[in-house]
């Protein structure tokens, strides 16, 4: 499959590439399955070979040979630096403050970076029952910085989450600081249209769009009046070599791309 330079990047590929740019060499990352895992592998294969990957299943310093299909994939165990109990993962690594970067997605996100993965509709009588928190709540509480990866639509970027599973910067009017929360909270929402950052009040601000995307298109996919940065930039897009790496080596079966 020949790839033209800079052409052809799908939304997932752009999101994966952009997420990888947020990772620095040596960062200790709490990795989720899907695009976050791909972004980490891409970072490791390019600018951050020393990225240290931890999975909530207990794998520490994992270097999976195949693309794991779940966070409990056996390939995460074989050849990892350590495998520990989940009690150690949540207490000694996450609650102790050792996780520098967390990754989350969700069914809904609001302007404060609050995420819902629990229910659509009321909790007592839900329209859709979603999987629930898993480790997301504590990742959102404790990671020093949190990256959110989600495709944008009015259905997912909402004025108010039906349920706050994972807290962002401001919950029911209270800031992280007021609540005494240890982690730094979300720093980016990486979407298929562009990237949102957070201002000093903790509100999401559109700071980047992908080439060819207008702020109006982004607003049209967002359920609240979206703040837009005066210094809006164009998100870096993957070049041909990165696309080749992603498609041929990192996700050859197109599980997530």
């Amino acid at each position, binding site marked *: 499959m020949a790839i033209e330079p800079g052409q052809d990047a799908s939304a997932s590929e752009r999101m994966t590439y952009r997420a990888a740019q947020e990772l620095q060499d040596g960062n200790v990352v709490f990795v989720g399955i899907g695009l976050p895992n791909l972004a980490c592998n891409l970072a490791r294969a390019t600018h951050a070979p020393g990225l240290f990957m931890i999975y909530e299943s207990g794998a520490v310093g994992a270097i999976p040979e195949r693309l794991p299909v779940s966070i*409990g994939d056996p390939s995460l165990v074989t050849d990892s630096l350590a495998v520990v109990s989940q009690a150690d993962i949540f207490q000694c690594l996450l609650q102790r403050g050792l996780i520098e970067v967390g990754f989350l997605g969700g069914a809904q996100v609001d302007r404060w970076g609050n995420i819902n993965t629990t229910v659509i509709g009321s909790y007592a009588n839900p329209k859709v029952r979603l999987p*629930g928190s898993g480790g997301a709540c504590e990742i959102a509480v404790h990671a020093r910085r949190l990256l959110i990866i989600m495709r944008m639509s009015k259905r997912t970027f909402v004025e108010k989450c039906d349920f706050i599973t994972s807290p962002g910067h401001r919950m029911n009017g209270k800031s992280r600081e007021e609540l005494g929360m240890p982690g730094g909270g979300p720093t980016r929402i990486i979407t298929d249209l562009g990237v949102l950052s957070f201002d000093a009040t903790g509100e999401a601000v559109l700071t980047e769009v992908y080439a060819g995307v207008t702020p109006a298109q982004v607003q049209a996919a967002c359920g609240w009046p979206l703040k837009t940065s005066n210094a809006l930039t164009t998100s870096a897009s993957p070049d041909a070599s990165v696309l080749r790496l992603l498609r041929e080596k990192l996700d050859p079966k197109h599980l997530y791309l």
Partner: protein
Amino acid sequence: MNKLCSMKEAISASVKNGSSLVIDGFTHLICFAAGHEIIRQRLRGLTAIRLTPDLVYDQLIEAGCVNKLVFSWAGNPGVGSLHALRRRSEAGSSERLELEEYSHFGLLARLLAGSAGLPFWPLNNYFGGDIAQANPAIKTVQCPYTGRELATVPALHPDVAILHCQRADKEGNAQVWGLLGSQKEVAFAAKRVIVVAEQIVPTELIRKDPNRTLVPSIIVSHVVHEPWGCHPSFVQGFYDRDNDFYVKWEDISRQPETYQAYLEEFVYGVEDRRGYLARLESGLLDKLRAKARMCEGVDYGY
């Protein structure tokens, strides 16, 4: 004491109508064989507890065994939903399942408290979000040193824990490697422990590497030898996860008719695990069997 018995005996001696139960495992070591036997024994009114209720818990729900689920993430990992659970927990469902919901850390903390013999466990969590609002069991305590408020969860002592391991002796000393999940915490928290093993080995082999022992025999009541007992889940060093099955499950479980047909064929329609394995597509087990990656032994001499 030799505690070896069949799965049928272990379940009928330990699990009663209304029991609270954990079939533990985090992706790894999920004992489907135990879940299927519980379905066959038509046990009712169970409280099913696990961080990650997955396919086998969904099957227990579909089969009508479960009244209440205590959990923190319910899905088909990497694939989709648990459809029996959804059918019984969304608006309009007739027989609603009772849900008691935490995050992973919260439910794990309940097991930690149970395993440590404490009535509660503190955790620095649940600020601002809705989980603690939706679950009255989550309370707070004030740190006597810093004055800070911390979340708490109450100790959990399941009536029965079923733990799959790579190997155990006949007394129930169980060794596990690879992902450990919350198996140790579940074992010590529970009132009764069934150990299911891929291999039954002489006690001498256990004693050769005592740091690998996760569960000591003194807390084990039954030991079951059940090779391939986790399929379609996996056992590190024995067999891989049957990912194709997890993917196919989405279609099987979406409709009650195909779901029930599956249970008829693979659960009610067989006597035991051997019967289940015999119905799998031929060659599948060979395909899933692990390619060896032995580590070296270490020296316990002095």
